């Protein structure tokens, strides 16, 4: 290797100290929306053709419904979600001081149910939990993602980054091998995206229903023949937090539509 090339490489490295090899620079980050065909984009763009909006409507009804032994609704504490929930989902997963770890929006909803409504937790991927989380996240549509900025969340962002870079499964692939190094190429006919979680919970044409980012991460893991982490596990929460911090500044799209 010539000395000039070594210097050029060193300069590049110095110019981007925060980026690990293969990471996508901030100005090159793109929502999965930009990888879709015009028909699927049209499905997301119009609220009366976006099937995710059915869940947002259900969530709006649940927001005002009293429940639990406290007989309280979300609205009894939080009022009108249009103002009180604006921007909230863009900050999640968020660090919870009492627990000393980050919690996802789904977990926050269930913590609210346990602590304030004295109601049973809603199961992961249940229609009610997805609907509430879609309704809350929808209030942030168009706002930039800020999750992971809290200094207390940093160690967990780093944990998530480590998991994203770590090869796993029988195919011995890390998330980064596809989503940092090979986005815009195709895998079995489908475009490989940057894995920017801008629109969760989102409506997948494949699922024919709304689903969480954790569900998506678990299907990626089974795709590489790895044992998927359990819903709500520290590993999935850390990955979710890293992905949201990696999408910093991209606008929220909930409920997005994806193939």
């Amino acid at each position, binding site marked *: 290797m010539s000395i000039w090339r070594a210097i050029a490489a060193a300069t590049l490295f110095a110019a981007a100290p925060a980026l690990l090899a293969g990471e996508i620079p901030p100005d090159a980050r793109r929502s999965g929306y930009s990888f879709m065909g015009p028909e699927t984009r049209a499905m997301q763009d119009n*609220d*009366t*053709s976006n*099937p995710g*909006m*059915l*869940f947002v*409507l*259900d969530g709006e*009804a649940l927001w005002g419904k009293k429940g639990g032994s406290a007989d309280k609704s979300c609205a009894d504490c939080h009022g009108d979600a249009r103002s009180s929930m604006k921007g909230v989902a863009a900050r999640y997963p968020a660090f919870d001081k009492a627990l000393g770890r980050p919690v996802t929006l789904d977990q926050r909803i269930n913590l609210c149910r346990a602590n304030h409504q004295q109601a049973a937790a809603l199961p992961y991927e249940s229609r009610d939990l997805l609907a509430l989380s879609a309704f809350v996240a929808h209030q942030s549509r168009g706002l930039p993602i800020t999750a992971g900025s809290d200094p207390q969340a940093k160690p967990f962002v780093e944990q998530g980054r480590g998991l994203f870079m770590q090869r796993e499964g029988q195919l011995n692939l890390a998330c980064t091998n596809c989503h940092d190094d090979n986005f815009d190429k195709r895998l079995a006919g489908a475009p490989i995206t940057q894995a920017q979680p801008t629109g969760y919970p989102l409506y997948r*044409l494949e699922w*024919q*229903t709304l689903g969480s980012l954790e569900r998506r991460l678990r299907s990626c893991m089974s795709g590489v023949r790895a044992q998927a982490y359990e819903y709500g596990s520290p590993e999935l929460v850390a990955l979710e937090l890293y992905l949201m911090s990696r999408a910093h500044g991209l606008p929220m799209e909930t409920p997005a539509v994806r193939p």
Partner: protein
Amino acid sequence: MAALINVPAKARRGDVIEIRALTSHIMETGFRHTADGKLVPRDIITSFACRYNGAEIFRADLFPAIAANPYLSFFTVAKESGKFEFEWTGDNGYSSTASASITVE
């Protein structure tokens, strides 16, 4: 369970308007099996109808090849102010309705 209806709030007499109707339903085909080999029974919407001030203007028979959360878009001529009524019926006694109003000038 929610339904999303799109009817223009206002139209001019004689305009051809688009109507869109989207409703929540799993549309279980009856051809899928669970992991332990049991057939998941069919559970679909089989029929949709739209009435404009009481008169049927559009009807559809749906089959398992219609995707979950059925979406339908169709057209009609705006004739008079009034009400559109939508009705979905299906397996296991399923029935749901929705309505939307229009002002025709």
